[in-house]
């Protein structure tokens, strides 16, 4: 007699049943873990101190560059530039490397990274027990988009994601001297001469 062979249809049925069982098991494990650990913590946001392997970082400011900014002439009409300020604090007693490549922007949490277009830094080492603030610019499409900053901590396998929201973001907030804050364009370089 020829050896018995399971028909292909029966194999497919077993595979289906096994798959369903595996999914159910995985869902059960996830449910137990969720019940034990609670929901994942909310993503860090603008102005929030975020722990890293060397100290903390925070994205402190986000803005769209003003339409009058000369840099905009290099952009397509449907694009604009977004600028963020990042504060990095190294609490260690040794230097840690930094690079503009550590930072990227995402359209959506899982979106493809948008690389830095320009920044106030290239790369270097941040001395121990010091902090510094750096500026990064990205080219983004006009209009609302859910934006996230991704920061690559050298000691972590996955990037830290910071939620910026979808705007609208202030325009030109961090210009070196913002007359709009004063309403009357006051500057002590122009007034207040005296002893």
């Amino acid at each position: 007699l020829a050896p018995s062979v399971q028909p292909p249809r029966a194999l497919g049925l077993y595979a289906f049943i096994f798959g369903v069982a595996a999914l159910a098991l995985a869902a059960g494990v996830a449910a137990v873990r969720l019940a034990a650990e609670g929901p994942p913590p909310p993503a860090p946001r603008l102005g929030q101190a975020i722990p890293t392997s060397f100290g903390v970082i925070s994205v402190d400011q986000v803005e769209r560059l003003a339409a009058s900014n000369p840099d905009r002439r290099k952009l397509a009409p449907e694009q604009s530039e977004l600028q963020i300020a990042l504060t990095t604090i190294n609490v260690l007693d040794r230097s840690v490397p930094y690079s503009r490549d550590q930072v990227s922007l995402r359209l959506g949490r899982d979106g493809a990274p948008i690389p830095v277009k320009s920044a106030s830094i290239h790369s270097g080492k941040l001395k121990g027990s010091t902090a510094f603030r750096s500026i990064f610019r990205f080219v983004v499409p006009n209009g609302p988009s859910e934006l996230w900053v991704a920061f690559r901590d050298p000691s972590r396998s996955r990037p830290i994601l910071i939620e910026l929201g979808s705007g609208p973001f202030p325009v030109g907030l961090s210009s070196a001297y913002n007359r709009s804050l004063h309403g009357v364009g006051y500057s002590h370089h122009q007034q207040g001469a005296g002893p």
Partner: protein
Amino acid sequence: MNVRSRRTTRSAFLKAGAGGLVTVTAGGALSRTFSSSAQASSNVVEVPLLINEGYVRMTDGSQAFMRGFGVTGDGRPMVPGPPIGRDASSVPIGEVAFVREHEPVRLVIRNGLKDRHANEVHNFTIDGAVDPVTRELLVPPTPIDPSGDPTIIEFNAPAAGTYIYMDDDEIQRLLGLHGVMVVMPADVDSRRPYTPAPGMLDPPVFDEQFVWVFHDVDPVWGEKARLGEFRPDLPPPIQFETLMPRFFTINGDSGEQAEESRRTSMRRSVVPEGVQGQGTLIRIVNPGACTHSPHFHGNHVYILTRNGQLPNVAGLPAISADGRPIAVEKDVFPMQSLGRTDVLLPFHEPLDQWPPYEAANSHDFHYPMHCHAEMSQTAGGGQYPSGMYTEWFLNGPLGEPPHVGG
């Protein structure tokens, strides 16, 4: 701003203070009492202080982890801490919370860090406040119960003047554990900064008064304080030599680029505004670590006391050998760490300015006051001008200069 209404409000405040309002009494169990020569009295000025910690938003939007003796409305540490005085929550613009000489004071201090830093002991003291007889510190460094139960410190207010209360540990003080106690003369009608005394300049009369607390904030220190308890493997202990402040504040705020809410706060507690001849007393203290150099545009100020003592002119006392006072008129002067300097801003006609002052065309004048130590004019390592900076307003029209200072 309506100067008249402000003065009316301030008068009501002073009247209430002179009436000797009884403050709330301590509640709950008291674990420990340190008492100096405080008199038994129902008219005690009682001030609660709570040692706590948390993030404080800096002028550039970043967060600095700090400690304070009070808590703000949004649950953050209050730096500087609450003033030691009556009715501190209802002080009108142009006035400060204060106690009067010899008044009994009771501080109820709790350590709110017991769950996070169980082994930390904080020692509370008031710098420069001495017993009038023994000349010893009224409140020598006194440990605050680490369990969180209240520690009571009682004393009778020292000589009229300006004092810094603080954690005796320099690092804790720089993390934010400091505040101010203003003492006014016992004479309830007095609008003078101190009681006349031999060897002191005749104290002038002032209209309004402000307290300016200078401070230097190092967020790296804050992070080390925050992480130290949980990740002893991570940060090295805080060493004073590593101090590198990134923010320089007056009463907790940075000037110029501060956003509107902070500017409103500064206008209330920092910015003098008035008409010609409105002598304004400014009590400047520096619980920070850096030496600062406040520089006034528009008017020189008269230095009345330095660390509660007669000031010097070129190293010599400001009273000549034959007893004549010498005006210590300065536009810039040093403020060393833990320094205390009371000055009178005279609000007189602006001198030597360009374009020249013309009474017929006088208008409102708007002047800066900034620290001359260059690093303090920035925030976050270089943002200018966002540091130890403020303004003062001399409202016109100006006329013949009145006599200032009584």
